[in-house]
């Protein structure tokens, strides 16, 4: 086990390094620079700014400087948010996105798994159709439509909940629901499919032949095996959800990290883009690693043996 962890760590570090390097040079190929904003700075001023930030040096030199700083834990300063460090901006906004993300997962996973289980156990009956309908709607209707609808019904029309912002528990209700719908929709489908696939397995017949009741069969035999493919998807799902949904955050004016992902690329804020990429990369790698370990716990056939 220890060797496995060590090996994974090394691979992870190499992955992140490759990610950072690739992103760095890819960014440089994009035409334009962070100072070409709609304010239309004069070209001499742009040039002055480029040299002030060292962006006129040869790419490889810039790369080495960046990597050197990175090893010291310095991600540099944002170009758009003058003098604010990339790490500070990430640390300010990420906890909020993560908070929202975790809440939506805390609702999305149980509900999604439950609906999927119901749909599978009551296959072909009304309950199944209802669950599948919910799932299809959740996937097809864009989340800004759902979010706007919720805002309108609960905020504008009835005034029961705040329309936007993130100032207290009541503010978190609508965005959490909006964000969790996508999770519920895809989980219902995946869980249903997985449960049905497990149902066709021979050991389910064995369980029934032992005279076990439905609850016992579902809980002890079906669920655990059906969860295996769900757990595989858990890593990327958690990572992406925690990284904030740009759309939901913008709709509800939540100061999360989501908007920075799109904004930094549009503004060519190099340091911000790189910082976010590396941050997300590390997160994703870590999430996948944890999932792989979890996998081994759930499915004994995949235990890591030294």
């Amino acid at each position, binding site marked *: 086990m220890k060797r496995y962890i060590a090996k994974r760590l090394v691979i992870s570090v190499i992955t992140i390094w490759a990610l950072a390097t690739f992103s760095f040079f890819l960014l440089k190929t994009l035409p334009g620079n962070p100072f070409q904003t709609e304010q239309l700075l004069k070209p001499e001023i742009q040039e002055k700014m480029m040299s002030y930030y060292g962006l006129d040096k040869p790419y490889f030199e810039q790369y080495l400087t960046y990597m050197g700083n990175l090893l010291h834990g310095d991600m540099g300063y944002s170009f758009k948010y003058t003098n604010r460090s990339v790490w500070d901006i990430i640390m300010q906004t990420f906890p909020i996105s993560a908070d929202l993300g975790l809440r939506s997962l805390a609702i999305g996973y149980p509900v999604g798994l439950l609906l999927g289980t119901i749909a599978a156990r009551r296959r*072909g009956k009304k309950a199944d159709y209802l669950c599948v309908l919910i799932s299809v709607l959740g996937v097809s209707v864009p989340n800004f439509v759902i979010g706007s609808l919720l805002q309108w019904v609960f905020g504008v029309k009835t005034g029961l909940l705040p329309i936007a912002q993130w100032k207290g528990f009541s503010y978190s209700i609508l965005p959490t629901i909006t964000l969790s719908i996508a999770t519920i929709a895809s989980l219902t489908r995946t869980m249903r499919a997985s449960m049905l696939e497990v149902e066709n*397995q*021979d*050991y389910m*017949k*064995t*369980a*029934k*032949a*032992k*005279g*076990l*009741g439905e609850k*016992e069969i579902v809980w*002890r*035999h079906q669920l*655990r*095996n059906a969860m295996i493919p769900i757990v595989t998807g858990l890593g990327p799902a958690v990572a992406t959800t925690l990284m904030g949904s740009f759309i939901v955050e913008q709709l509800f004016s939540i100061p999360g990290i989501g908007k920075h992902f799109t904004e930094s690329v549009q503004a060519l804020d190099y340091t911000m883009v790189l910082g976010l990429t590396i941050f997300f990369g590390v997160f994703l790698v870590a999430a996948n690693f944890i999932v792989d370990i979890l996998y081994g716990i*759930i*499915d*004994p*056939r995949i235990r890591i043996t030294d």
Partner: protein
Amino acid sequence: MSILEVKDLRVSFHTYAGKVQAVRGVSFSVDKGKTLAIVGESGCGKSVTVQTIMKLTPTPPAFIEEGSILYEGTDIVGYSEKQMQKLRGKEFSMIFQDPMTSLNPTMRVGRQINENILKHMTLSSKEATKRTMEMMRLVGIANPEINMLRYPHTYSGGMRQRIMIAMGMAANPKILFADEPTTALDVTTQSQILDLINDLKKQFQMAVVLITHNLGVVARMADSVAVMYAGKVVETGTAREVFYEPKHPYTWGLLNSIPDTANMNGNRELPAIPGTPPDLFAPPKGCAFAARCPYAMKACIKAQPEETCLSDTHKVSCHLLDPRAPKVEPYHVKRQKTE
């Protein structure tokens, strides 16, 4: 004394494409402490019959159209799921063909056996664990204290089948249904498993319903045999009667197709019954075997043959047994009677 009697059982599957009549009137009986072998080719309905007895096939799409299943005199066809759960594991138990897929891969084997015990016997969990270990020893697994903590995939095929048997026997069932229990195993292991089943049968006076398409297994294990074709039992009787005095052309065909290693000189084609079984969406009006039967008569196509009782135990359904039918010579290889 029959512990299980199946009378005219009809089971069909309601699918989108139509109704598949998988079982079209099957009757047989099982005696306490005796082994009944059900033989037939793939798709003849043997598994469906047996699984229907335990109501393991999900009710849509499977439906029992007609018939009765008498267990210890009570008709269980109409039993609710709850009532069936009381029977399963306790009175009936079943072992399946592929022990790898029939055991839950993510649960320790000990627990899988334990489950059965705890469900049907009132024992404390300590006592149940003790019994689990006993059962494991019984089926020939040494060091059960350690081995019960292992997962199925760490066992070989034969050992897994033993675990399945341990699991099936754990609550002392009165009937053990074995659906091709050795088909997936190699020959030596086959032998061991069959011996095990026989031993257990004697020890616990358990009835065994053995499904197989391997006549060798039948010869070794069976007290009585039922030959099925296209959803019907075409011939049934004691093992001796069916092997030495078969009366149905299909039985002749089956016995004929056993490779005779003794008389193999040079290259002869393996004898087989030409043709394929009929489509059970629209089974024929007459005898289902007529299309492949070298002795088919006009009557065979028109009407289904009635069951003729040649003795208390020997029953055949064939028009050839009608007094008006021509006398025919069975085309099978005469077997030497061995005592």
